[in-house]
C-alpha cells in the first residue's frame, strides 16, 4: 500500500514482555502483522496496574491507528479511555465474555479447553499414574488452566492422580524447578507448567530427571527436546493479528467479542520435531476423539470462572470438583 | 638547630576561617623528653597531628634529621619513625593486646598466614624490655585505661618509633600508673629516643621533662630548660597571668539529710561479673566528696547506676530522698541529678551536633513551648555559657567535635553545672582542662557546694581530689575501703588503700623519675 503505514500500540500487562505467556504471544502476533500487513508497532510495558489508564490515554493521544492490550485488569481503564476517545479503535485480548465498549473489540481464549487436551494426553501417557501441575501465583487465571487440565486427565483416566502446586512466582525458574522436583518426588512423571518464566525451571527439572514437562502459551517444546511432552499453545498471537487485520481491511467491529477455543484453533497441543514420538499414536487417537467431542459440544469443559463457590460437580459429563476449588472460590 | 632530630619550621594551620596554628617553630632533640604545654585550644594536638601526618599544614615545613619531609598520612610518618598516642585511644577493644600492637605490621608465615605465636612473643619481649609488662593475650576491653595506654605506646615502639608523641597521656592515669609511665619515658629517652609529652599538670612537667615548650594562641611562645623554671612561671607563660595552683576554699558546712544515699548497692559490669558489691555511701548537702581508686575498681559502674544508665542488681539509691526507677536516666535527672561523664566522646557529647544542641539536652523542658523547641532561646543561652565558661575557638553553631579536648570538657561542664540540680556528680572534671580552666572549674564546684548542693567527684588525680574535696572515699574491688576527711588525708595511706592495702606507691618526685 502506498499510504502511510498503520501504527499499532501494544500495551502489555504489568508482568511485561518475557512472561513466555500472553504478552510474548501478543508480541509474536505484532511481528507477524508487521511482516504480512506491513504495520509499525511499539510495545509499551507499564510497571504496574496503576499505569494502565495513563498509558492507554497517552497512547490514544499519540495518534495510533489501533491500541491493543491484554489482562483483565485493563478492562476498567480501557472502558474509561475508550469512552473519552470514541474514534480511537481499541482491542483487548484474552479477557472475559462481556463486551467492553462500542469502539473496543475483545477476545476470549478458551485455554481451559487446551488444558483439557494436554491433561488428557498426560493422563494417557503417565507411567506412574500420577501427573502434576505447577502454577505461578495462586490466581484465578491459573486455576482456570488447572481445572481444564484436571478435567481432561480424569476424563481420559478416572484413576489418574493429579497433584496441584503453586510456586508463588512468575519470575524464579529455580523455584519452579524446586516445586517440580517436589512433585516428581511424589511419583508425578508429567508436569504441566503454567508459571511464566518460572515454567522454564519446570522444564529444566524434567530434563534433569528424565521426566516430562508440558509447556504453556507458546510452543516451548524446543526448550528441552525430548523432555517437553507438548505445549498447550494459546494463540494470543492470532487474536492480536486478527484484530489488526480487521482494522487494516476495514472490517473492524467494535463491541464484539471473539472466541478462540479448540473449535477456532485458538488453543492447541503443539506437535513438532522436538516432541516427535513422545506421544504414542494410540494416545493421539484417543485424544483426538475427546477433542472432537469438545468441539461438537458433547463435552463441555468447565471454565473455572463459571464454577459457583463450593460447586460439587462441574461440566457435562458431570465430574466431582477437585477439593482445592471449593475453598478457593 | 643542627642537633635536632626533628624540627617544625613556621607551621601554620587554618581550619576554615579559624587559624589554629600561627607560625609555630619547635625543635625536638634526640634523647630528650620534651614537654608541650598550653591552654585548651592553644594548638598542641593540632601541631602534633601535623607532625604525625594526620593533618596537612597550611604552610611551613617539617624537617626530619635535616631533611624536609611532608607526610601523606600516618603510614608515612610511622615509616619515618614517628609514633603518636592520641588523647582518645585508637584500639580495637575486642581484640587481644598482641593483635592491636602488630596491626599494620603483622609478622606472617608463608602464604600470608598470621604468625600469632611470634607476634605474642615479640610483644611480650618488647613489653619486658621497656618494663611495661602486659599479657599479649589479654583482650583490650578487659584492661584498665593505664594498661590500654601501654598498648598504645607499645604499638609505637613495635614500629621502631624514634619520636614518641604522647597527647595528654596522664589525663586519666592514677598516680601509680603515672609514675610507671614516667619511668618508661625516661628509659626511652635514655635509649636515645625522643618523647613529646603534652600535659596540663605542671608538676608532671617538672617531674619528667628535660625541656619545656609553651604554646599560646597557636604560637610557641618559649622553650625552656626544666632546671631554669618553676611551676608558677610556666603557668603565667601559658595563661598570661598568675594562677592559683591550689583551690582556695573555706571549711565545709554540711547541713541537712543526705542528698545522695546509697545502701548495699550491687552492680555488675559489662560481662556480667560483679563490679560493685554491697556498697554504701552518703553525700550530704554542702560537701564535696571525692572517690579515689585505681581505674576499673567499679567507679564507672557505680556512677552509671546512680545516673540510671546502668541497672543495679541489688541495693537502694536515693537522690534528694526520692528513689528513682532503676535504670532510668530521666528519673535520676528528675530526682535532681546533674552528671558530668568521663567519656565525653561517646556519652557526654554528640560530637556531630552543634554546641547549642549539646547544651540544650537535659534542659529541654526549659526551652519547651508546648511541643515546640525555642531554639533561639537555647542559642542565646548557649552564647552566654560559651562566654561564662570561656569556651574557645567556637560559636554556638560549631559542631562539638571541632573543639579542642579541653573545650569539649567545658561544654559538658557548662551544661550540667547549670542544671538546677541538688546533686552534682563529676567524673574526671578537669580531664584535659588547662590549669586556668581547672582553677575556675574548681571554684565553680566549691561555689556549688557553698550553695548547699552535694558534689561527688570521681577522679584519678589524687592531687585534685585532695585539694578540692572535703571528704575522700577510697574504692577497691567495688567496695568502699576508706572514708577520710581531706584535711588529715595522707597520700601514702590513700595510695595503700587504693592498691588494696599492700602497695607503697606514691606520687613521683623529680629524683625518682630521673633515677
Amino acid at each position, binding site marked *: 500500500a502506498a499510504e502511510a503505514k498503520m501504527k499499532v500500540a501494544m500495551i502489555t500487562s504489568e508482568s511485561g514482555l518475557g512472561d513466555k505467556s500472553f504478552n510474548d504471544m501478543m508480541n509474536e502476533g505484532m511481528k507477524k502483522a508487521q511482516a504480512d500487513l506491513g504495520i509499525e508497532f511499539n510495545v509499551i510495558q507499564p510497571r*504496574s496496574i496503576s499505569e494502565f489508564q495513563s498509558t492507554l490515554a497517552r497512547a490514544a493521544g499519540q495518534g495510533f491507528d489501533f491500541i491493543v492490550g491484554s489482562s483483565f485488569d485493563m478492562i476498567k481503564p480501557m472502558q474509561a479511555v475508550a469512552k473519552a476517545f470514541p474514534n480511537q479503535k481499541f482491542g483487548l485480548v484474552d479477557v472475559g465474555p462481556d463486551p467492553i465498549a462500542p469502539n473496543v473489540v475483545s477476545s476470549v481464549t478458551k485455554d481451559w479447553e487446551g488444558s483439557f487436551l494436554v491433561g488428557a494426553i498426560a493422563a494417557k501417557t503417565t507411567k506412574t499414574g500420577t501427573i502434576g501441575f505447577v502454577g505461578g501465583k495462586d*490466581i484465578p487465571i491459573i486455576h482456570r488452566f488447572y481445572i481444564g487440565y484436571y478435567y481432561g486427565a480424569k476424563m481420559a483416566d478416572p484413576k489418574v492422580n493429579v497433584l496441584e502446586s503453586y510456586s*508463588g512466582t512468575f519470575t524464579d525458574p529455580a523455584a519452579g524447578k524446586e516445586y517440580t522436583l517436589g512433585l516428581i518426588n511424589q511419583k508425578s512423571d508429567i508436569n504441566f507448567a503454567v508459571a511464566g518464566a518460572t515454567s522454564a525451571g519446570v522444564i529444566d527439572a524434567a530434563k534433569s530427571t528424565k521426566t516430562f514437562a508440558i509447556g504453556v502459551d507458546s510452543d516451548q517444546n524446543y526448550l528441552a527436546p525430548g523432555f517437553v511432552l507438548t505445549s498447550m499453545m494459546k494463540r494470543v498471537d492470532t487474536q492480536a493479528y486478527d484484530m489488526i487485520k480487521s482494522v487494516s481491511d476495514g472490517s473492524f467491529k467494535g463491541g464484539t467479542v471473539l472466541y478462540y477455543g479448540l473449535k477456532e484453533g485458538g488453543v492447541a497441543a503443539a506437535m513438532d520435531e522436538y516432541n516427535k514420538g513422545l506421544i504414542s499414536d494410540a494416545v493421539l487417537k484417543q485424544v483426538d476423539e475427546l477433542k472432537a467431542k469438545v468441539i461438537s459440544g458433547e463435552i463441555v469443559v468447565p471454565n473455572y470462572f463459571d464454577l459457583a463457590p463450593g460447586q460439587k460437580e462441574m461440566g457435562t459429563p458431570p465430574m466431582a470438583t477437585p477439593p482445592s476449588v471449593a475453598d478457593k472460590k | 638547630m643542627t642537633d635536632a632530630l626533628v624540627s617544625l619550621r613556621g607551621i601554620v594551620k587554618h581550619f576554615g576561617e579559624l587559624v589554629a596554628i600561627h607560625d609555630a617553630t619547635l625543635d625536638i632533640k634526640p634523647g630528650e623528653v620534651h614537654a608541650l604545654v598550653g591552654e585548651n585550644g592553644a594548638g598542641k594536638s593540632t601541631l602534633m597531628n601535623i607532625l604525625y601526618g594526620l*593533618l596537612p599544614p597550611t604552610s611551613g615545613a617539617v624537617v626530619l634529621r635535616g631533611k624536609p619531609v611532608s607526610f601523606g598520612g600516618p603510614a608515612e610518618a610511622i615509616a619515618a619513625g614517628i609514633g603518636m598516642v592520641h588523647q582518645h585511644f585508637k584500639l580495637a577493644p575486642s581484640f587481644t593486646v598482641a593483635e592491636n600492637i602488630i596491626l599494620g605490621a603483622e609478622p606472617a608465615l608463608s602464604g600470608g598466614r598470621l604468625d600469632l605465636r611470634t607476634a605474642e612473643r615479640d610483644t611480650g619481649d618488647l613489653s619486658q624490655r621497656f618494663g611495661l609488662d602486659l599479657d599479649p593475650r589479654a583482650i583490650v576491653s578487659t584492661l584498665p585505661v593505664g594498661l590500654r595506654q601501654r598498648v598504645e605506646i607499645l604499638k609505637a615502639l613495635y614500629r621502631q618509633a624514634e619520636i614518641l608523641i604522647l597527647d595528654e597521656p596522664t589525663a586519666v592515669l592514677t598516680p601509680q600508673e603515672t609514675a610507671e609511665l614516667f619511668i618508661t619515658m625516661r628509659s626511652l629517652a635514655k635509649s636515645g629516643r625522643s618523647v613529646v609529652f603534652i600535659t596540663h599538670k605542671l608538676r608532671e612537667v617538672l617531674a619528667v621533662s628535660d625541656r619545656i615548650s609553651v604554646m599560646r594562641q597557636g604560637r610557641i611562645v618559649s622553650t625552656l630548660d626544666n632546671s631554669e623554671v618553676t611551676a608558677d612561671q610556666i603557668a603565667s607563660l601559658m595563661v598570661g597571668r598568675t594562677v592559683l595552683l591550689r583551690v582556695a576554699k573555706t571549711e565545709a558546712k554540711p547541713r541537712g539529710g543526705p542528698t545522695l544515699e546509697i545502701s548495699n548497692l550491687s552492680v555488675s559490669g559489662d560481662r556480667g561479673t560483679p563490679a560493685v558489691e554491697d556498697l554504701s555511701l552518703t553525700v550530704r548537702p554542702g560537701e564535696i566528696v571525692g572517690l579515689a581508686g585505681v581505674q576499673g575498681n567499679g567507679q564507672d559502674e557505680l556512677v552509671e547506676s546512680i545516673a540510671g544508665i546502668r541497672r543495679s542488681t541489688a541495693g537502694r539509691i536515693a537522690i534528694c530522698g526520692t528513689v528513682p526507677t532503676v535504670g532510668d536516666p530521666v528519673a535520676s535527672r528528675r530526682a535532681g541529678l546533674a552528671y558530668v561523664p568521663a567519656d565525653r566522646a561517646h556519652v557526654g557529647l554528640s560530637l556531630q551536633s552543634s554546641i547549642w544542641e549539646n547544651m540544650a539536652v537535659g534542659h529541654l523542658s526549659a526551652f519547651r513551648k508546648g511541643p515546640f523547641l525555642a531554639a533561639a532561646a537555647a542559642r542565646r543561652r548557649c552564647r552566654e555559657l560559651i562566654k561564662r565558661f570561656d569556651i574557645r575557638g567556637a560559636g554556638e553553631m560549631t559542631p562539638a567535635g571541632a573543639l579542642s579536648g579541653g573545650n569539649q570538657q567545658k561544654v559538658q561542664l557548662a551544661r550540667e553545672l547549670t542544671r538546677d540540680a541538688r546533686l552534682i556528680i563529676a567524673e574526671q572534671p578537669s580531664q584535659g582542662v588547662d590549669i586556668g580552666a581547672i582553677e575556675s572549674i574548681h571554684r565553680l564546684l566549691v561555689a556549688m557546694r557553698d550553695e548547699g548542693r552535694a558534689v561527688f567527684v570521681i577522679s584519678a588525680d589524687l592531687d585534685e581530689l585532695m585539694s578540692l574535696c572535703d571528704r575522700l572515699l577510697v574504692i577497691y574491688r567495688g567496695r568502699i575501703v576508706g572514708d577520710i576527711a581531706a584535711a588529715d588525708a595522707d597520700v601514702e595511706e590513700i595510695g595503700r588503700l587504693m592498691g588494696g592495702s599492700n602497695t607503697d606507691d606514691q606520687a613521683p618526685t623529680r629524683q625518682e623519675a630521673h633515677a
Partner: protein
Amino acid sequence: MTDRAAPRPHPVLPRLLRAVGPPLFALVVSFGLGGLLMAVLGKNPFTVYAVLLVGSLSGWPNLAVTLQLTTPLIFTGLAVAIAFRSGIWNIGVEGQMLMGALAAGIVGYAAPLPDWAMVPACLLAALAGGAAWAAIPALLRAYIGVNELVLCLMLNPIALLLTGYVSARVLKAPGPTNKLPDVVDAARLANFSLYSQLNTGIFIALACCALMALFNNGTVRGFEWKLIGLNARFANYGGIRVRRNVIGVMLVSGAIGGLAGAEQVLGVYGAFYDNFSPGYGFDGIAVAMLANSSPIGVLFSAFLFGALNSGSSVLQMELGISKYLVQVLQFIVVLILAARFTFSWRGWRRPLVASAPAVTLPMTLPAEQGTTEA
C-alpha cells in the same frame, strides 16, 4: 583565644555554585553516561532526552502522570527518611505500605459509615495498619534487641504473602483477579484527569512533608529524634527516653508508609489489589537517601523518580525504547547523585580528622551503632 583571620564574606555566586553545583554536575555526568549507553544501543541520546523531558513534564497529561507516580514515593520516601534520621534501619516500608493498603481496602468497602466519614476512616485504618506492621520490628528491636534490618528484610515478603492470602482466599472479590471488593465511592480520593489517577492524595503527601519538616526542625521531639540518630548513648544519658522514642519513630514511619498504601487503594485502584506495588517501598529508600533524609528533599527526589518513570512509557511509545534502558538511566542518576564529588581528583585520601559529616544517615552498620568506644 586563637584569633580569627579577617572574616572574608563569600560572594554570592560561589556559594550558589557550591549549593547547586554538585547535583547539577551529577545530572550532567549521569546523562552523559546514559547517552553513551544509548549510542551503543543505536539510539540518539538527544532525541531520547528531549522525549524524556517532554514526556514527563510538558503538558498537563504528562505532568499529571508524573505527579501520580510521584505521590506514593513521597509517602514511602518520607517514611524511610523519618527512620533513617533517627538511625533506625526501617527498610520495611514496602510491607508497611501493603498492610496500610489492606486496612484501607477493607474499611473502604466493609465499614458501615456515613459518606463523610469514609475517607477519614480509611486513612486512619491505613495509619493503623502500617504502624501495626512496623510495631513488630519496633518492639522486637526495643525489647529483645533483634536487629531491625534483618526483621524488615523478612517482614516484607511476609506482608506480601499475607495480603496475597487475604485477597486470594479470604476476602476475594468475585472475578478474575485477586483483589478485595471495590471501595465505596464515598471512600475514593477524587481523581483530576483521565490521563492519570493523580488524586487528592498528593495533597495529603505534601501536607505530610510540611508537617514533618516542621516537626523535625521545630519541635522538642523532632530534636530528640535527631539526637538519637546522631548519638543514642548521649541521648539516653541526657534524659531522652531512647526506647520509647525509637518505638515512636518506627510507628510514625510505618504509619506514613501505610498512607502510601491508602493513596494507592483509595486514589488509584479503588480497591486493594494483590501485589499492586512495583516496589514503591524500595524506591522510597533511594528517594530518602538522595534527599539526605530531609522531608523537603524527599519532595524533589520523589519527583525525579516520578518524572523518570512517567517519561519511561512515553519513550516506549514514541521511540520504542525498552523500559530497562530507562531503569538503567534512572539508577545511573541515583548512583552519581549519591556520590560526593570532592572535585579534587588527586586526593584518594579520606579526611583523617573527623569533622561534621555531610550525611545524616546511619553511617555505621546497624550491628555497630554505638559500640565503638575503646
